[in-house]
């Protein structure tokens, strides 16, 4: 296992921090009484941020519930990594088995709350020839920050208006739980595809266990 310098330092500093569980209060965060229709405990659809799609319509991420999702945070004017990420999403789509492909949704969520308006995203959709299987969203600062935090995506806006950001492709199962993440640009897409096939085979979503999911940056 790779030693993680920053984490090690932080662990020394915090010395009692980040305990995995609490033997005194087992299952204190149990969700037996979760009302029907509520999102599962790990569903990122619990995030209550509102988004707008490239038609200008209000959109909640929970509208993606029910089918697996390939989710990437990007910005339309990005000249380097984002086009590669979108190309990888398209490759992933082509590589999917024919019976799985129509079930999968592809979502792009912009970091750029100012320039990536509905019209810009619509132009992006047209220029990349993204069909109805793709959802393009922009939101407000809080929504972007909180979604990025949930996905483990680091980002910051540079003085020139561009964004520095982690390159992450996230696979969500039908419940909106993170089933897999590919970090970086060079990794193969095999694991992402497997996660999608698994997620598509289990439309309930809850079956995708924590063991299958991989944490983001750390």
């Amino acid at each position, binding site marked *: 296992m790779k030693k993680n310098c*920053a984490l090690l330092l932080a662990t020394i500093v915090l010395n009692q921090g980040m305990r995995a569980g609490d033997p005194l209060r087992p299952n204190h965060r149990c969700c037996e009484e979760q009302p029907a229709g509520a999102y599962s405990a790990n569903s990122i659809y619990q995030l209550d941020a509102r988004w707008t799609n490239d038609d200008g319509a209000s959109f909640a991420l929970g509208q993606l519930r029910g089918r697996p999702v390939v989710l990437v945070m990007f910005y339309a004017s990005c000249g380097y990594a984002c086009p590669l990420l979108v190309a990888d999403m398209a490759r992933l789509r082509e590589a999917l088995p024919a019976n799985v492909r129509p079930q999968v949704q592809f979502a792009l969520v912009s970091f750029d709350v100012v320039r990536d308006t509905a019209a810009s995203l619509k132009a992006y959709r047209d220029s990349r020839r993204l069909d109805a299987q793709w959802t393009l969203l922009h939101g407000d600062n809080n929504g972007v920050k909180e979604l990025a935090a*949930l996905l483990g995506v680091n980002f910051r806006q540079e003085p020139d208006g561009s964004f520095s950001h982690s390159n992450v492709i996230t696979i969500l199962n039908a419940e909106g739980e993170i089933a897999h993440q590919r970090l970086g640009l060079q990794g193969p897409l095999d694991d992402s595809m497997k996660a999608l096939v698994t997620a598509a085979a289990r439309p309930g979503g809850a079956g995708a266990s924590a063991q299958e999911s991989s944490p*983001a940056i750390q």
Partner: protein
Amino acid sequence: MPPLRPWLSHDKRRCAAWLGALFVVSGLSALPPAPPADMVLIPAGNHTPLLRAQKDPAQVPVAAFYLDVQPVTNADFLQFVLTHPRWQRSQVSQLFADQSYLEHWAGNTDLGPHAPPGAPVVRISWFAARAYARWQGKRLPTIAEWELAASAGYDGPEGKNDATLHRDLYQWLARPTPAILPDAAMARLNFYGVRGLLGLVWEWVDDFNSAMVTGESRADTGLDRSLYCGSGSVGAKDTGDYAAFMRLALRSSLRASNTTSSLGFRCARDLSP
């Protein structure tokens, strides 16, 4: 006319306000309104980032802002969870706070012996800290704002020249976190009139996840264009400030749902809400 400084006494402040009013009338300058209760004005300044790309400026300008005098206490946070049950220990979603969230409290709305009312609240996630701040009509400070406020010494705006501050800070760094934290109000005021930024608990910042570092030391030594897109993905240039590196390491290693026994928060606000 010097800028109105928050550490002036009330009398002096009133006097300065009158002077300021004269300037406003004559159209020369406008004074910010008096700080909200329990906050102080941090005057505009420059933050020197620890990590920066070659083309990044050495200093980042920070606009004046208001900052809580002291970190949010257990008593403060109790008021929040009483009115916002979804942030109580047994109710919170595991997506937004991990298993040790508020675990030193005796119960959902019971502080108990390990969480004195006046001590800073810890075992708080970034999501919980943000939710509290929003409830207060505030927000979390940015890294630049927090570091600017913390760069002051006890007696002057340049903390790096303050030997007493350094002695206190490094003594604190060398000690393990006490099981029961001291009262936040006991921490010594710094030059701006802020308590406990250094030497009490670590604190969440809004953009804790903005550093383009992997936490993996080999990957951080150079530009990693695979993991990160953009000019921000470079290594550190200045390794002099050990405590600042500790903060950077901590922030870089955190996920937004993490909670720890020595990590709390305080709130900030823009001058014009």
